[in-house]
């Protein structure tokens, strides 16, 4: 037995040499990345492949631009882009939130976009320095169990959550970027002391901690908690997955100038090291075209950001939606938000 094993072990160096000299013809081989020339647009996408893969396929077909996508977590890809520096092969960064784009812009990694691009979206949905532009928007909502907390439907402010009735019955995801953006909006809106006071009161109400919006919605749906803070489209996705009659949980928009009614965005920026700014710009233009916007509206249940494109059934148009008046460009102070969450002990 030992001798046959040994002979097998001796084959290994040969195989390894083979591996190290390149093996692109084998499964999972290097594909097209080897020929990254001027005409291919390489996208680092922090948005999920299942969500944006189809729209990227479509844009290749319509615009004729050849695209390669690497998927990952937005923040991890931002860290990767920062480590790669000027040698990066990425042309476009497609982020789940404005924060990761802001972090790259701050380090000078994003090129300035043409004003015709940033000007084509609704006011307030592009970076004022033209480093990035939103492609779709999402609203913070309260998911609730209509049996346990029917009165949520009448709420207009997050202060209503501090009622002792909800002790131990609120679901939040404090490590999730969407909750942290909300807390940043809270800080911008009410100042550091006001935000600390609210968070402390929330903590005293013993909220249940989850790691994702989806987990909160599941908990609300099962009745484990009475209500939870999530993004609106999780509810639409869940409805599409299980069917409208199987979904017990409902959602409520606060519909007022309140940090709990924050509207956040997904967006794109072109890398300053890109060798294909032209192609990358074409990709952005497709995302902002009527067809691209319809995709985000119908398939991912988000809000379109271009005037004239209607939102999904049951959603109030973005222009008319009463939401937090906090400027998204002021949501780049996440580090301070984290310190505050640490201080209060919500992590």
């Amino acid at each position, binding site marked *: 037995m030992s001798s046959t094993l040994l002979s097998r072990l001796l084959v290994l160096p040969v195989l*390894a040499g083979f591996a190290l000299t390149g093996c692109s013809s084998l499964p*999972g081989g290097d*594909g097209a990345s080897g020929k990254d020339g001027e005409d291919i647009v390489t996208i680092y996408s922090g948005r999920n492949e299942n969500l944006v893969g189809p729209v990227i396929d479509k844009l290749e077909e319509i615009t004729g631009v050849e695209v390669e996508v690497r998927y990952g977590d937005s923040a991890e890809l931002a860290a990767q882009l920062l480590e790669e520096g000027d040698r990066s092969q990425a042309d476009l960064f497609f982020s789940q939130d404005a924060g990761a784009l802001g972090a790259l812009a701050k380090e000078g990694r994003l090129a300035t976009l043409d004003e015709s691009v940033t000007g084509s979206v609704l006011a307030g949905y592009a970076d004022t320095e033209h480093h990035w532009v939103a492609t779709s928007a999402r609203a913070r909502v309260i998911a609730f169990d209509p049996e346990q907390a029917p009165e949520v439907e009448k709420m207009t402010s997050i202060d209503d959550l501090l009622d002792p009735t909800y002790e131990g019955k609120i679901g939040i995801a404090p490590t999730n970027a969407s909750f942290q953006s909300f807390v940043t909006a809270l800080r911008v809106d009410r100042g550091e002391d006001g935000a600390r006071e609210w968070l402390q009161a929330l903590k005293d109400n013993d909220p249940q901690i989850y790691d994702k919006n989806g987990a909160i919605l599941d908990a609300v749906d099962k009745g484990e908690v009475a209500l939870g803070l999530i993004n609106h489209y999780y509810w639409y996705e869940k409805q599409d997955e299980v069917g409208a009659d199987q979904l017990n949980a409902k959602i409520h928009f606060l519909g007022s100038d309140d940090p709990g009614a924050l509207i956040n965005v997904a967006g794109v920026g072109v890398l300053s090291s890109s060798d294909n700014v032209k192609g990358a710009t074409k990709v952005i233009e497709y995302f902002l075209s009527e067809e691209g916007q319809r995709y985000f509206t119908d398939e991912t249940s988000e809000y379109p950001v271009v005037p004239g494109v209607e939102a999904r059934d049951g959603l109030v148009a973005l222009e008319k939606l009463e939401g937090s008046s906090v400027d998204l460009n002021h949501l780049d102070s996440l580090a301070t938000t*984290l310190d505050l969450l640490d201080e209060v002990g919500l992590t």
Partner: protein
Amino acid sequence: MHSPTAARPRSRQISGKPPWFLLVPGLVAAAVALLPVAYLVIRAFDSGTGRVLEVLARDRTIELVVRSLLLTGAVTTACVLIGLLFAFLVVRSDLPWRRTLGVLAALPLAIPSYIAAFAWVASPFDMSGFRGAFLVLTASCYPYVYLPVVAAMRGIDPATEEVARGLGKSAWQAFWSVTARQVRPAAAGGALLAALYTLSDFGAVSLLRYDVFTRVIYSSYRSSFDRTPAAILSLLLVVITVTIVVGESRLRAASEHVRVGGGTARTPTLIRLGRWRWVAGSTVVGVLGLALVFPMVSLSYWSATGLSRGVDTSRLVESAITTAWFALLGMIACVLLAVPVGVLAARYRGRGSAFIEQATFAGHALPGIVIALALVFFGIRYAMPIYQRTPMLVLAYAVLFLPMAVTSVRSSVAMSSPRVEEVARSLGKTRGQVLRQVTLPLAAPGIAAGAALVLLTAMKELPATLLLQPTGSRTLATSLWTETGIAAYAAAAPYGLGLVLLAVLPTLVLMKVQAGR
């Protein structure tokens, strides 16, 4: 005929300097393994020593270190107890169906901890917090102790116990005083892997909502977009790791035993359990129920739901083939680097080889994202032609999983006596011939076991695969991540099941290799 030898620990080494053909590849392995540490030092001290001290002194840092160490201590202790008990029951007791149970006991290794955690989260039971993290990680990690201890127990010549019996000890006393002592190095090596896995785990603790050290590192990347605090905290993790590794090697140094020859086919005396067999039997069944049956039932349930809604089969197959291919290459690279390190560590104990061995462990408790970013940093600067190509990912797997292979190689080489090699030398063989014709064949089963361990662990890897794999390729783990990213449990489950089934193969090989000893 093999004769039992209770050689004294200090005579285990070979005198003289290690040969170049071990030292040079050993140093290469150490250099590769230290890449992440080098990166962390560059990143951490980028913004000055003041910042480093400030991050380290935060109350939360200290609190989370304590929480991490508590979890690690509890999981490791439980793993050692379960691993030793199971190995004893399978190899040395008269427990009914012990062969079948012995194979089943290794299988939780095939279930990634994040999948086990997902099974609990998707269930009606509330397992969040410490108890859930403890249960899931213990279930995932005890095979790290169980497998090497089984191998060590099977490898021990029954003659040593027979001598003890001849001196008037009972079967149980003989087992306790002879065999139990001899498996200590194997148990300590396994406990080390379990401890480092627990420290580095992110998936299970985040799903089960237990706040530990790795979560601060991740949240530092994910929400402050600041790589400096993450690097500083990661360096702290390296310091903790090195402390644990050095502690383990001291423990091991005090208790290594060797014998001459490759092993006998004789079965040792079985210890009768008597009325304890029911207690032992129900313990085994209980642990397997929690560690294996429950997650598999949950995963099968969700897979059935997912498959009935239609799953892209070609994507599933493509992901499985890619997973196997990447993991196979990673395994080969790991074994090639681990053989010189393991032989050096077992045979030439000195400052140099101790450094090389411990260096390969330094980054083993780092979360995958840190290793991945380190390789992004060095890869794009110094290895652009292979950046985001297969060789780069293989290198990442080598850095991540080298210690698993090193542990296996070292402990299997250490169990054979250097005297055999000296005899071969005296018969005129060169040192290279001795290595090829004597040392490695004797250690082959252990090396194969290490290779299988790397293979099945590499299949489960996610963060480094996402950042470094060739553009456009998909593995089972990345597909699973894509599906769970939008909370589609049912759609994700078939990939999870595929991953477990693929990982069962190397696990069975692992068992077979060791049973064949």
